[in-house]
């Protein structure tokens, strides 16, 4: 694999990892903007704007955008998170020019009033759809509670009220401020010629306005607590827990990834043997999310309402034991074996590489090969896990639950 990078005069960063033995190429524009960069007045605008990007430009009507992507057989989509809005397409190498042209063009969308008003209905439908899914509701409420007063506490979708009140002019202003060349990275992974991609980027993105967007990164001070949302129509009780963990800039994040595999992976973990295998829960997992300047452990349980309190105690017992005694050598080896294989499998496809390529760059201005990741993973010891636990113990600092229960 060969890595190349260049910064265009306007500040747009172009990075590429060439793997000549694959059949396709994945291209993604990573815009460093998301829910955390919004204000109350425009809550949900990042995600709504992500939809509006597909509504075309002066050169491409809304129908053209979808038509051209389908004509080149692209697998394409977009996503909006707390920190990043991503527009991507995986195509065969011969279609790089059309794909690059289209992706770049739609990032300067027309944002026509008529399209804005129509797409607003779709966004309200999406909010309605998630409202019917308890796991989504519980996650959103947990983020709001855990990160109360912090930018990460903002909702990605926004609310019915904030989306209804949002105007096209507010969205245009947000786009003007955030979609600056210095705030965007074009990442390319797979089978492509570097010089061709740079030339395409210059041609299609060279006239984008320059500028960078500072991001507020205040430390998070989770107040903690429990929120119970009662839904008598729900069959299962859905519960999530959060606790502080290393940030995207903290080297302890590697240990955190491994620790959550040991404690809360879908199979073979402590939580699996204590809660899932005996049938106490439908699902129980622990994961780790890194953000700019902060991070969190996130646990998720789905179980019967009657068994919920006992399951919370079982989780706490696991946390206490791990915090006090750390993990065993056998557990560490097993987790390394699992994660190494996952890294290798995920990296075989350009789409699998694109996500880590782009994320490493925008979070840390860093390029890491698959081999770098494997070497770091293999070097971790139980002492590293101990250091992590001393700084970031496992726990249920903040909890939210949705289901029939009225209290916990």
């Amino acid at each position, binding site marked *: 694999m060969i890595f190349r990078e260049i910064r265009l005069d306007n500040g747009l960063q172009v990075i590429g990892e060439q793997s000549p*033995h*694959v*059949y*396709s190429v994945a291209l993604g524009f990573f815009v460093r903007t998301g829910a955390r960069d919004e204000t109350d007045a425009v809550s949900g605008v990042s995600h709504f704007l992500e939809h509006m990007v*597909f509504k075309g430009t002066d050169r491409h009507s*809304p*129908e053209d955008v*979808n*038509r051209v*992507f*389908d*004509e*080149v*057989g*692209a*697998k394409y989509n977009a996503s909006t998170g707390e920190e990043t809005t991503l527009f991507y397409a*995986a*195509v*065969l190498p011969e279609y790089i020019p059309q794909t690059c042209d289209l992706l770049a063009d739609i990032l300067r969308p027309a944002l026509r009033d008529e399209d804005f008003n*129509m797409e*607003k*209905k*779709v966004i*309200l*439908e*999406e909010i*309605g*759809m998630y*409202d*019917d*899914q*308890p796991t989504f509701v519980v996650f959103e409420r947990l983020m709001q509670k855990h990160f109360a007063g912090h930018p990460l506490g903002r909702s990605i979708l926004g609310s019915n009220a904030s989306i209804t009140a949002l105007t096209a002019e507010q969205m245009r202003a947000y786009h003007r401020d955030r979609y600056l060349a210095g705030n965007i990275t074009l990442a390319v992974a797979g089978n492509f010629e570097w010089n061709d991609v740079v030339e395409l980027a210059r041609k299609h993105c060279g006239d984008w306005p320059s500028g960078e967007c500072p991001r507020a990164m205040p430390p998070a001070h989770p107040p903690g607590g429990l929120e119970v949302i009662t839904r008598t*129509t*729900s*069959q*299962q009780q*859905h519960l999530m827990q959060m606790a502080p963990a290393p940030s995207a800039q903290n080297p302890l994040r590697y240990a955190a990834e491994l620790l959550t595999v040991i404690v809360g992976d879908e*199979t*073979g973990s402590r939580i699996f*043997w204590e809660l899932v*295998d*005996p*049938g*106490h*829960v*439908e*699902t129980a997992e622990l994961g780790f999310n890194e953000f700019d300047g902060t991070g969190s452990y996130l646990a998720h349980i*789905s*179980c*019967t309402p009657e068994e919920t309190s006992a399951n919370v105690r079982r989780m706490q017992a696991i946390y206490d034991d791990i915090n006090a005694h750390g993990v065993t050598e056998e557990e560490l*080896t*097993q987790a390394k*074996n*699992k994660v190494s*294989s996952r890294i*290798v*499998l995920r990296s*075989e*496809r*350009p789409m699998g590489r694109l996500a880590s390529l782009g994320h490493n760059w925008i979070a840390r201005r860093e390029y890491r090969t698959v081999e770098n990741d494997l070497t770091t993973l293999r070097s971790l010891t139980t002492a590293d896990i101990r250091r992590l636990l001393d700084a970031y113990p496992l726990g249920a600092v903040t909890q939210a639950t949705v289901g029939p229960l009225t209290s916990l």
Partner: protein
Amino acid sequence: MTEQTIHHHTFANGLTLLVEPMQDVQSAAFSLLVAAGSIFDPPGEEGTAALLSDLITRGAGERDSVQLMTDLDNLGLQHSEGAGHNYLNFTGATVAENLPDALRIYADMVQRPHLPEGEFDAARLGLEQSLRAIEDEPRQKIMIELRRRCYAAPWGFPNEGTLAGLKNITAKKVRRHFERCSRPQGTILGVAGKVDFAAMVDLVGQAFGSWKEKSEPEFSTGSRGLACDHINHDSTQTQIGIAYDSVPYCDPDYYAAWAAVGVLSGGMSSRLFTEVREKRGLCYAVYATLHGFKDQGRVLCYAGTTNERAQETLDVTLRELARVADGIEEPELERCKARAKSSLIMQQESSSSRATSITRDWYHLGRVTTLNEVRREIESLTVGRVLDHVHRHPARDFTVLTLGPKPLEVPRDLS
């Protein structure tokens, strides 16, 4: 596209091994189908196969439950086990050098599982909760219930079982299901990735060759549910499920049927996405997909929309389904072909998709189609051929199911 070499070998006991060596990957993946799926669940005991697919992982051969799971983890195997209609499905992928050891463990699981009675309650509780969790996911629930209404039993029955059926199952019944159904004949093992055919024949011969044949188990058939139905559910959105007849994978008309569904729902420029979502903003999610068993196929269609706009969504969707018979534009078909071509080529990057694909082909066709053959089939499609298919299998005699606070009006002339 490079021509693939796909090998097959059928052992004396009836098990078929398929191997697709892939030069450019470091991984290897398998898909193992054992003909002990949910269609063999005794009536009133729906969920038996699903429980077997859980219990079968709780110790086999010389390994107890913990040892088995730990060994799979140490092999870095990403795996899943579950009940399908015909088969218990086992899939796994890992770095190529670890695949042989993983396959030996699966050989134990399908031939010598412990099925420990002491863990039966735990498995049953887990499955019961999965079934209850589906009740909390209306998007999943509607499609499970739609299949019950558009296919006769046992094909329409959910392969994960039912809460009612689960109450009647015991540890002994699960063991009986295993003893009755798990057999080498009809078992298909597909392997793809950085592997060698001759070495795989040796390995699989050693691991599965002594598996004893059994007589073919029987299953009972039944009826299907109401063609027009509603499930009351207190929710923000109404879920709409629509089904109509099409053809199965083995039908000579399959690729034409695939293209007709592609015109409706293949990519964001397709008709349902354009007419229902883009032009009218009626919903976030709308799609149609070709679904099938060995001898029958259906088009299954989904839309989820807020309750006030559900009637309009149903009307517009039904109109679009019927309108395909009026004509297809040449560029619509060309876009379907372009999407197919890129997915076929990208499949060569994934050992897991190839393993699943060759195994599915063998089940449905008794042979494996190469990617080039599929590409030729798709390139030979014309608007005329696709329309002929649509006229032979028009979108009508719909099964319509809704889930939400109140039923919708289904036009009489359509259902």
